[in-house]
Each structure stands twice: as C-alpha cells, then as structure tokens.
C-alpha cells in the first residue's frame, strides 16, 4: 500500500502543490506536472502551441535530437506534453516516466535527472533572440493534429457532436483552435501565453515511485517557489446549459460505417453525484452485462460498440456507437428505450450489484501503478474532499436503485449527431 503526502510549494494561495506517492512495490517512476487554467477561445491555439514548443527542447538540450538522446540515456525515459480539456478549463500536462532507480545499472538517479529535464522545459525553454525556437515546425505539428482528427472517424464524430452539445460555451470551441487560429499565432502571443501559464495556472506536481530522494524534493521546491504568481486560477464547474429543444445534425463523409452520438444533460454538477453516476454508467452501458451491450449489441446485433461516457465537469452524458445507416433509427430508439426502462426501475437488481463489484475492483487496482494512482488524485484535486479509492468504494456501496432511477429521470436528451457515408 502506498503512502501519500501533499505539501504546498510556498504559501497555499500561490496554488502550487507537490504530491508524492510512495510504494516500494513500484517498478517504475511517474512524474506529472499539471498546469490548469481557463479555456479561452481567443488564445486556444497559442495555449496549445505552447505545449508543443515546451515538449522536447530546453536550454540544456536545445535540439530535439540531443533532448531525445538524453531520454535514451535515462533508460528510454518518456517525456511528453498534452493539452486536455476539463470542462471550461484546460490542462497543459507534462508526463514523464522511467524505471525505478533500483534498476539503473550504474546507480543513476533517474527520477531526479528526469525532473531536471522537466524543469528545464518549463523554466528554461529553448529561445533565441527573445523568441521561442522552432515555432514554424511546431506550428505545423499543431496544424497536423488539428486536421488529422478526421483520420479517426469515431473521434471526429465526438468532436463534431461536442461543438453542438456545448454551443456558446468554452467547450464548444476546439481545444486546439482552428487551423486559421494556429496560423495566426505570433511569438508575442506565445510569450504572453507562457507568462500567463507560469503566473496564473494552478500547478499540481506529482511523483509516484518506489522512493523519492530529498534531492528531488529540493529541486522541485527551489524551482517552483521562485515563480512570480498573480491571479491564480480557482475553479468553478458550471454544468452545460439545457437547450430549448433537441438539436439534431447529420454530416456526410466518405465513411464505411455510420457513427452516432447521443448527448444527455443533467443540469447539476456531476461531481456531487459521482457515486450514483458511476454506478448508473456501469448499469446502462459500461459493462458487458449492461443494458446497452446486452440489447443493442448482443440481442439486436446492431453494432460492435455502444459506449457511454460522462463528462464530469460539464454534467453531460454521451452514448456513441458505430452502425449501419439503415439501423440508426432502430439503434437510437433502443438506446432511449433502455434509458426509459431504467427510469421506470425495470432492470434487474443484480445489475447494480455487478456494477458495484466492478467499480470497487477497478478502484483497488488504482494503487497498482504510479500513473493510475496519480490520475486518481489529479482528477480528485478539482473538487471536494480528496478521498482515497478505498474510501470511495465505501460510498459506492451505499448507492441504491432509487438513486439510479432518480438520476436517469433527470437526464434530458440534448443532441443527436450522425456521421454517415455518402452512399448511405
């Protein structure tokens, strides 16, 4: 079992914390540094491009080849950045990992060396003449990523649906912006985005591994306590607004299989009902014994997948599936029919027990790997009291059938998106 320790870096109001999670059984170490700040349409591309620029160079290793060579020396350590959406906020996340120091063949301090590289990326990015280097190559990468969403038709359908579901909200604009936004980003925009990041973002630093050295903690303290901080971001998660009527959209592309997305809204924060929603999701569609799997896939043979996923920060529930054009109406009706059955309480009690067993089991597994235990505590850092997976298992146990019925009755169909092939 791991031990966890969270300390502020400097005064609490500076919004910077270090969490260390130590378990001697871990074979690898994982480091994450997460900057969270508001999602703003006008700066979407600059904020995103910054993640690409800071990812694989710094002043010690100003060239991508040198940078990767150093990672290679650290036993093939990984270090990457990502842009992620958390409702109306966005994360710029540094994720890194390598093998535990005990496996280093020559006694190298791998976690410390890796943290030094991350600090270099954050505090001493590769710059020349007052500007970031490699802007054009990184801009091309960003544009490639924006345009290549079309390659994955399921992701494309979910992205297009999100534009409709969250219309008029920060989440209704692409996280990475549009191609035209990316083309317009200047070095000044990037410098502003960089300064805003360091000054205002909430910063959560996580380390999970078999042990942590004082040297590592000292490095984090020294580097992060020296940042100038103003107007540090605080969080308020507003549920996505109801529409006056169900919005429907059909798009045509050269696809073999139709993709359908249904979105339901709840109107109140999911965070306060997390236990109920987790069980509801398992009963409705997450498990192979769930109503959607059993009926839409197995009984009616309409699809290979029919997946449910809650957006916690926006209080939205989506169901997405890939199917024949001729079956879309039948599948939609069945997805709604199964929800109606839950609303009426017409489902087996066994399903709830199975869902709880599955959820508690998945919570127990959280402690098996450094990255999953970090994910748990990072997710929970956005809301409420930070409880352990074990504590959360006890809460799950108390969810009743009535809770699930009440939650199902609160869901309102918001949007239906269909991506279909030209021939269909």
């Amino acid at each position: 079992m791991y031990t966890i320790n969270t300390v502020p870096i400097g005064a609490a109001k500076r919004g910077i914390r270090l969490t260390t999670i130590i378990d001697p059984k871990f074979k690898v170490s994982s480091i994450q540094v997460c900057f969270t700040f508001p999602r703003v349409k006008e700066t979407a591309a600059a904020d995103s491009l910054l993640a690409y620029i800071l990812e694989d160079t710094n002043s010690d290793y100003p060239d991508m080849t040198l940078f990767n060579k150093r990672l290679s020396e650290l036993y093939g350590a990984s270090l990457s950045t990502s842009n992620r959406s958390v409702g109306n906020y966005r994360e710029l996340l540094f994720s890194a990992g390598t093998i535990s120091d005990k496996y280093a063949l020559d006694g190298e301090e791998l976690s410390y060396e890796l943290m030094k590289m991350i600090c270099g990326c954050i505090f001493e990015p590769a710059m020349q003449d007052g500007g970031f280097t490699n802007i054009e190559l990184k801009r091309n990468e960003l544009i490639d990523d924006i345009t290549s969403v079309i390659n994955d038709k399921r992701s494309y359908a979910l992205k297009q649906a999100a534009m409709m579901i969250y219309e008029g909200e920060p989440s209704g604009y692409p996280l990475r912006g549009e191609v035209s936004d990316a083309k317009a980003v200047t070095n000044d925009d990037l410098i502003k985005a960089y300064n805003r990041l360091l000054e205002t973002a909430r910063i959560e630093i996580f380390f999970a591994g078999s042990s942590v050295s004082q040297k590592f903690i000292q490095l984090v303290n020294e580097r992060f306590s020296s940042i100038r901080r103003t107007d540090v971001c605080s969080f308020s998660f507003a549920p996505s607004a109801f529409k006056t009527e169900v919005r429907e959209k059909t798009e045509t592309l050269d696809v073999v299989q139709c993709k359908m997305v249904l979105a339901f809204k709840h109107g109140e924060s999911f965070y306060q009902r997390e236990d109920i929603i987790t069980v509801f999701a398992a009963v409705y569609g997450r498990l192979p014994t769930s109503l959607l799997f059993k009926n839409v896939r197995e009984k009616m043979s309409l699809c290979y997948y029919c997946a449910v996923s809650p957006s916690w920060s926006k209080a939205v529930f989506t169901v997405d599936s890939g199917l024949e054009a001729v079956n879309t109406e039948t599948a939609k009706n069945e997805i709604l029919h199964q929800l109606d059955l839950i609303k009426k309480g017409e489902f087996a009690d066994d399903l709830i027990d199975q869902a709880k067993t599955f959820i508690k089991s998945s919570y127990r597994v959280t402690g098996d790997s450094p990255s999953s235990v970090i994910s748990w505590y990072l997710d929970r850092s956005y809301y409420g009291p930070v409880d352990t997976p074990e504590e959360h298992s006890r809460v799950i146990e108390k969810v009743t059938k009535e809770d699930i019925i009440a939650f199902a009755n609160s869901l309102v169909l918001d949007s239906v998106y269909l991506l279909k092939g030209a021939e269909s």
Partner: protein
Amino acid sequence: MQREVITNERIGESYVRIMHDSGLEILIWKMPDFSLKHAIFGTRYGSVNTTFKTKDDADFVTVPEGIAHYLEHKLFENEDTDVFDLYAKTGAIGNAYTSFDKTCYLFSCTDNFGDTLRILLDFVQKPYFTEETVAKEQGIIGQEIKMYEDNPDWRLFFGMLSGIYHKNPVRINIAGTVESIAQITPELLYRCYYSFYNLHNMCLAIAGDVDEDEIISICDELLKKSEDKELVSVVPEEPDEVAVKYAEQTFEVANPMFSYGFKSRPVDDSEFSRVCALSDITISLLADETSPLYKKMYDMGLINLEFATETFAGCGFFVPCFSGESKDPSKVREMIDEEIERRKKTGFEADRFENIKKSYYGSLIRHLGNADSLATILVNSSLGHTGNAFSSIDAVADITLDDVMDFLNERFDINNSSMYVIKPRASADSGEES
C-alpha cells in the same frame, strides 16, 4: 506434472513453469502486494491458420478467412448461459482477442480469482455452436469489420502487407470480410475448434498475487486430458520477392500516410527473441528520434511526430517497417533507402547503440509492475516457442554492433521493399487503388 522455476539474475525476477498432465503448459508469475490478477488462456490459432490437418484427417482443409476470430466471439456463448454474466458475478472483466497467430481468452480481477479461473477454463473447453447463434454473430462482426475499414492506420498496414506478400494469409484482415464470414457454419467452427483448441496447442498464463496450489488444484479438476493430435498448419509457399513495390489508395485523411516495409525471411522459434531485438535495435539506429535521418527529415518538414518504426514478426512473417505522415512519401522512401546504403558502408555510432540497448532494457523493466503485461509476455513466450519470458532481456544484453551490421546487410534490401500510401481525397488524382 513437471514444475520448474525460471529465474533471471539480471533483473532478479522469476516465474514458475508447469507441464500439466493434461498436456497444458501453465506459467505463473507471482506479484506480491499487487491487487490485479490477470489470466490468459491462449491457443496457437490465428488468422493465418486457414489450411491445416490433424493426424485424424485424411487431407488438409482450407477454411474461410476470419474463422479464428469468429470462433473467438462464439465461444463466449455457452448452451445455458452467457460467459459475461458469469464473470460479472465474480467481479471480473473478461475479454478475448485474435491475432495473426494466436487466440487468447483473458480476465482481470481483484477478488474471487479461483472462481473466475474456473469460468475461464470451463467455457473455453465447452464449445456450443448452432445455426442460429452463428448467424446472429454476423451482424456484430460485420460492424467490427466495417469499423476497421474506416481506420486509415488499419488500411495502411494491410495495404503494406499486401505489397510485401503474394499469398501469405497475413495480408488478410484478421476478422476476414463480410463475404468470407458469411461462409462460416457450425460444422466448420467445430472442426477448427477440435483441431486447434487441444491443450497440447495451448497455454495458461497467470500474473498477480495468486496461490499456485489453488491454481493447480483447479486445473486438476477442470482440464480435460487431451491426446496430441499432431496438428499441422501450413501457409502457401511465398516467393522471396515482394508482390508490388508501390501501391496507393485515396481515403478521408488529413495528410498522406505511408507504410514502408522490407520483406525479410521468417525466423525460427529458437531465434525469434534475438532476431526481433536485433531488428528493433537496427531500425532504431537507422531512424529513431536520436538519429541523423530523423532530424534531417523532420527539419525538412518531411515527417511529423507520427513517424514510427516497428518490427512486424510472427509465425511465417517478418517485416521491419517505417510508417508515418508525409507530404512526399516517395522522398521519405528515397531518404530511408539512402541512409540504409550509407550505413552499410559507415556503420553506426557506438554511443547511440549503447543508449538504444539501455532503452530496450528499460522498456522491458517497465512491464514488471503490470500483471496484464507479464501475463502477455508469458503467453507469447509459450505460444511463440521463444524459449522463456526472459529471452528478450538476455538477447539484448548479448547483441553487438557487429550483429547489427550483419542484420542490416542481410535483411534490408532496398530492392525488396514495398511502400503503401493513403492520399487524402482532395489532393488525390483518382479514387481507385492501383
């Protein structure tokens, strides 16, 4: 029953290998203090095994493409119950997959391991196929096939393999086609089942904080002793040369995508771990993110971060390959070819070679804390006959730069390579495959 402990001094890890009286090989990797327990019951039966015979058969039979995958789906349906319902009662999550050369049934759980293992061993040994249940699956698998047809990476990969191989069934989609699965009958499924799901052709691999005695006791109770049927599976004889050097198609993608492979002779089981490691190291030296070639192509804007290298290898096939996105795939091919020829003359830098070996060692260590990774390593080592689960770690430690150069000279013939390209619709000249 024979039992041995297999240990690797280099990393201080060990696992247990048991040859059960039923004919099944059982591998157990104990992971004290970990919550997740993972078990895989696998057979040497994949999409390439379309022509086979046992000692009971007069002649070889050829079955429809995709039947191994179809059988995997149908085995989850027993006469009296659905396997997922049984798993749900123990809190386990079950799944299965079919690859080119194996089919594996697996589960993960934290509690009730013994009861869940009983479910796994029971249903995999209890086939039940009827006209009605077989027909029902065509809709679901048909949608799975169509889902992959919308996946450009999938199209790219099989496009490249079709360029490399003339006849080897590895060029065919694992799930078959809508047309081929329409030919599948209960009788064919039973024939395949009784040929390949023989315990002599299978393996049970388990990783987690488990009790070995309990596992053996359950196996003693449930495994049905089987006679070795002397199964023989054949693939059509394959010419040494690639089928085509270049092919392309158009599809709904953002940028042109390419996959570039080198036809290389298949490897014997005993050599498999070493030669795969050699291949991985060689293609890394040629073109990973620390290589001059990568930097040159990246700085020219010729590749982006999607560029990747891979050794695609298994029973009867071996293809080192490069893939990615590029506005000019032909130029990428030209530069890779030039680099191969240059390196054949100049060799590689010793410091990069040592770093890549270190990285490879690191990637193997990363599996150690992960029950599903370890169970997968175990099952692969058994079904692939690759010696033991530590073969890769030992092989990497012993590889020299001279070995790499021999490998490069022998297996990277730029005149026996094939590139497949997917062009975006808008910029494409035509919508047809050539």
